[in-house]
């Protein structure tokens, strides 16, 4: 049996078949019984039952929103006032934010009920959720495999039926890649569409919060609630006007979709290539026009991305000094020793590696050769995307070169792990939206994902393309076999 979507839960709530309190209780019980097998959650919201009861009162008074009464899981790098926010890092164990992120305030206003905070790669740095200091998260499709990362806990929670929808964050693919590995639909919105106030910063020119769900329609429901201008985030756009309800037409006749031939070449699993080509054919059958083309610069996105993301991380993470918040070392001789001890004992190996890489790229003598060079390459990559979107409504692309790898295979070779982000990072470098959705399974039964990339502010049109595909396919309705057997 497949899991319920937020849209279905809303319909059941509206029909009086269930209540916010009953839904919260049901998901909390499932988490208590089953999450030990996955470790999707770092923290469970102890107030969820009380908050759901309060939402039921508001529902009775006529509250209506796409998420009213719907339970939601939150990635543990989004600040919550009543639950710890840890980024799955030792340096933030027990940290209680003095404020809620704007997306949390918006979810509360819309009547969503928070189930808890989900596991992630430490500070969102990783592609497998194995760099978490709270332990690895396992893929519900095969618990010997990774759920992807960095939003692996959010993806595992939704895939395992431990939340109907979740929030993740995407700096270089951290929503889209775990969705591909876990058979889910997730979206990295246009940069500036969703407030980042209260999102613990990694790469500020790249980070964006977005939904992880079963369907494109649920992604629309979440974005309807969380998108919009926020004066507390000076990078949020003033004029965000998506009408997702009207956008979900399912009619994509005449849409032009570009298929970059060079994205399907060497290095991509044959089964994924076949699934992408089949998806392109499906879009053609729905009336879209598919055109093959060459998308230049693919091989330059990963090096440019890792220089820029690491440089921004080294700057953003300089705030962790062991004084105002975070891990406090036991003993220290003086201020310098306090800084060094807090940071060296508090950060894990991958975070240290990226801080070092970024500090190097920003250091005097290397700034021009690395950081500045990467920013120029970023401009060239954007020119190429601008040219592509002058011709196409969307680009169809793989999400990752393989399906989910086995646990323990990825961390020993950082460069190989970075290279596996080849299809996702350019989206963040240029700020465009992209939606990842299931389009098949490999021979081992692991989900395969594809992504659709669009021009800036085409989020609603992209969701409609994915929605049309899902109206005519059922990949998104499959659930892990373990539960089907029950």
């Amino acid at each position, binding site marked *: 049996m497949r899991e319920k979507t937020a849209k279905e839960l809303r319909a059941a709530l509206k029909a009086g078949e269930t209540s916010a309190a009953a839904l919260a209780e049901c998901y909390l019980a499932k988490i208590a019984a089953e999450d030990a097998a996955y470790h999707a959650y770092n923290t469970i919201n102890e107030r969820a039952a009380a908050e759901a009861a309060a939402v039921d009162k508001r529902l009775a008074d006529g509250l209506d929103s796409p998420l009213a009464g719907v339970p939601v899981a939150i990635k543990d790098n989004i600040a919550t006032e009543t639950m710890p926010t840890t980024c799955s890092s030792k340096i933030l164990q027990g940290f209680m934010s*003095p404020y809620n992120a704007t997306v949390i305030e918006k979810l509360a206003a819309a009547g969503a009920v928070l189930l808890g905070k989900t596991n992630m790669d430490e500070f969102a740095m990783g592609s497998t959720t194995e760099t978490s200091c709270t332990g690895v998260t396992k893929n519900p499709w095969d618990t010997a495999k990774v759920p992807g990362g960095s939003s692996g806990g959010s993806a595992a929670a939704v895939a395992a039926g431990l939340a109907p929808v979740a929030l993740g964050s995407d700096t270089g693919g951290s929503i889209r890649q775990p969705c591909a590995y876990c058979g889910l639909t997730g979206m990295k919105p246009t940069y500036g569409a969703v407030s980042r106030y209260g999102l613990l910063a990694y790469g500020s020119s790249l980070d964006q919060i977005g939904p992880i769900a079963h369907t494109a329609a649920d992604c629309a429901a979440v974005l309807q609630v969380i998108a919009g201008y926020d*004066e507390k985030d000076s990078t949020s756009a003033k004029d965000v006007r998506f009408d997702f309800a009207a956008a979900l037409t399912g009619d994509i006749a005449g849409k032009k979709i570009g298929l970059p031939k060079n994205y399907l070449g060497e290095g991509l699993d044959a089964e994924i290539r076949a699934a992408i080509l089949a998806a392109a054919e499906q879009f053609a059958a729905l009336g879209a026009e598919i055109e093959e083309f060459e998308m230049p610069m693919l091989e*330059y996105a990963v*090096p440019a991305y890792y*220089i820029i993301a690491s440089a921004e991380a080294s700057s953003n993470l300089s705030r962790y000094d062991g*004084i*105002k918040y975070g891990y406090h070392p036991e003993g220290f001789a003086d201020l310098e020793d306090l800084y060094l001890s807090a940071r060296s004992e508090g950060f894990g190996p991958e975070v240290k590696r990226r*801080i070092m890489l970024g500090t190097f790229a920003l250091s005097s003598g290397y700034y021009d050769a690395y950081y*500045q060079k990467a920013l120029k*390459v970023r401009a060239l990559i954007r020119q190429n995307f601008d040219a592509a979107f002058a011709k196409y409504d969307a680009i169809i692309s793989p999400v990752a070169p393989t399906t989910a790898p086995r646990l323990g295979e990825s961390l020993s070779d950082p460069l190989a792990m970075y290279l596996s982000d080849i299809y996702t990072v350019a989206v963040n470098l240029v700020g465009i939206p992209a939606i990842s959705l299931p389009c098949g399974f490999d021979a081992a039964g692991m989900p395969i994902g594809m992504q659709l990339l669009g021009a800036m502010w085409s989020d609603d049109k992209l969701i409609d393309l994915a929605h049309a595909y899902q109206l005519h396919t059922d990949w998104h309705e499959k659930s892990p076999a373990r539960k089907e057997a029950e």
Partner: protein
Amino acid sequence: MEIDAKMVEYVAELAKLRLSEPEKAAMQQDLTKVLQYMDVLNQLDTADVPPLTHVSGVENVFREDEAKPSFGREKILQNAIAVEDGCFKVPQTVE
């Protein structure tokens, strides 16, 4: 770009990280490998390309300088390593 042991120590100092000897050796190897890969960017002629620092097109964002309520002092201090007289207490910084 080859990273030597001295460079690892210099960058660690800038980043306020104390690395053990095995950590330094691994960092030297990892950074060298990653940076050598990044040298692929030098294949591109970017002499006349302006750097793209930000994708939103937003310039400076200004607001009126109005006094507004802040978080309470207690909330701000709730995660502190040490508190004295309603302030963060830190080790002596000036002799």
